[in-house]
């Protein structure tokens, strides 16, 4: 009987935790009794709500306003967390955004913003966190990728490139950190019912669902369960994997 995930009391850092998948991850870990801190960029009201909901449920959650594109700010936030909690056990790199458009219509800013957040942000936060994990010879890193990282999707060159990079980053870092017993994995969601995918879901709902074997969109909680699994002790022997949580999504 599997009952103890081993996550109670673990120090967990989640980026982009105020909404969507990030929030579901934060709440799932907090419910396990983990000591969760999340970063958010600009939605203070949403972040406050997550913290307040945690407090109401007797699960303290901490939040810090940090733009993951800012390497210095990331390093400082990670140091504060390590100082306060003495260690960092789990990192969930979730912060990400989309700026979908045909390549010919993509502005320089659409490309830069997506790559700097989705890829640069992962570098910024992970670089700061791994030092603490290396020192303790323990840690679990879970990167939120996307189905777009492996399958083509119209209007998603920037986003797809960023998520393909995350899959490659995950595998390379898994090799690098294996000697220190740190695992690195990714979760690749399909179309999940969050603010980020509203345009996709509302724009061509039936068309998109027709390509999903399970014929429905996923929920943020369903992605969070996969993250929970990879962070739990049940996944101690898994590293360098990209776990697809997409209902069997098939793109053209």
């Amino acid at each position, binding site marked *: 009987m599997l009952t103890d995930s081993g996550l109670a009391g673990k120090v967990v850092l989640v980026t982009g935790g105020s909404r969507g998948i990030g929030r579901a991850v934060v709440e799932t870990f907090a419910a396990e009794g983990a000591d969760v801190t999340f970063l958010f960029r600009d939605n203070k009201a949403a972040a406050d709500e997550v913290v307040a909901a945690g407090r109401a449920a007797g699960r303290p959650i901490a939040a810090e306003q940090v733009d993951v594109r800012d390497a210095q700010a990331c390093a400082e936030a990670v140091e504060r967390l390590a100082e306060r909690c003495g260690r960092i056990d789990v990192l969930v790199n979730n912060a990400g955004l989309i700026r979908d458009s045909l390549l010919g219509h993509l502005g320089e800013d659409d490309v830069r913003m997506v790559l700097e957040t989705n890829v640069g942000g992962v570098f910024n936060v992970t670089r700061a966190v791994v*030092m603490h994990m*290396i*020192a303790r010879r323990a840690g679990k890193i879970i990167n939120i990728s996307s189905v777009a990282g492996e399958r083509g999707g119209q209007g998603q060159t920037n986003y797809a490139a960023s998520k393909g990079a995350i899959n490659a980053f995950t595998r390379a870092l898994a090799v*690098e*950190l294996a*000697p*220190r017993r740190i695992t690195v994995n990714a979760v690749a969601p399909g179309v999940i019912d969050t603010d980020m995918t509203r345009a996709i879901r509302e724009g061509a709902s039936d068309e998109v669902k027709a390509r999903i074997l399970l014929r429905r969109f996923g929920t943020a909680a369903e992605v969070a369960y996969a993250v929970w699994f990879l962070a739990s002790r049940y996944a101690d022997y898994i590293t360098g994997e990209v776990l697809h949580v997409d209902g069997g999504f098939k793109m053209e």
Partner: protein
Amino acid sequence: MTTSEITREEIQAVYPKAAKIMADALGCDVEQVRLDASLIEDLGAESIDFLDFVFGLERAFKVKIPRGKIMEDARGDLPEAEFEEKGHLTERGLQRLRAYLSEVPADRFRSPMRVADIPKLFTPETFCKLVARGLRATKADA
């Protein structure tokens, strides 16, 4: 004060704690971390081990050891093109390196010396010196 040679006393002052940190990173006994051991050839250090104990040293001694600091300090004011050429140290580059890594026994320097092989020269004393320099800088700032 900060530019003169690091003294034996300064090295001995940091060595016990530094050796413990290096032994932890290398997964070896602290007795094996002799001041003159080659970290790579004698103690089997890999690049992640360097990353590990440099971070440990920085935290334990509250000093900064920037990446690439050894090469940068060894090169000093010598222009990069005069320090190395096509992956090998120039004669002058080698002289600078010998002078900077004065703790490393002379017979460990090869000529020609590949830049990629320089880390093989590093010893625990090399890093004790870096820590001692960092401590001097901290004192100077205070």
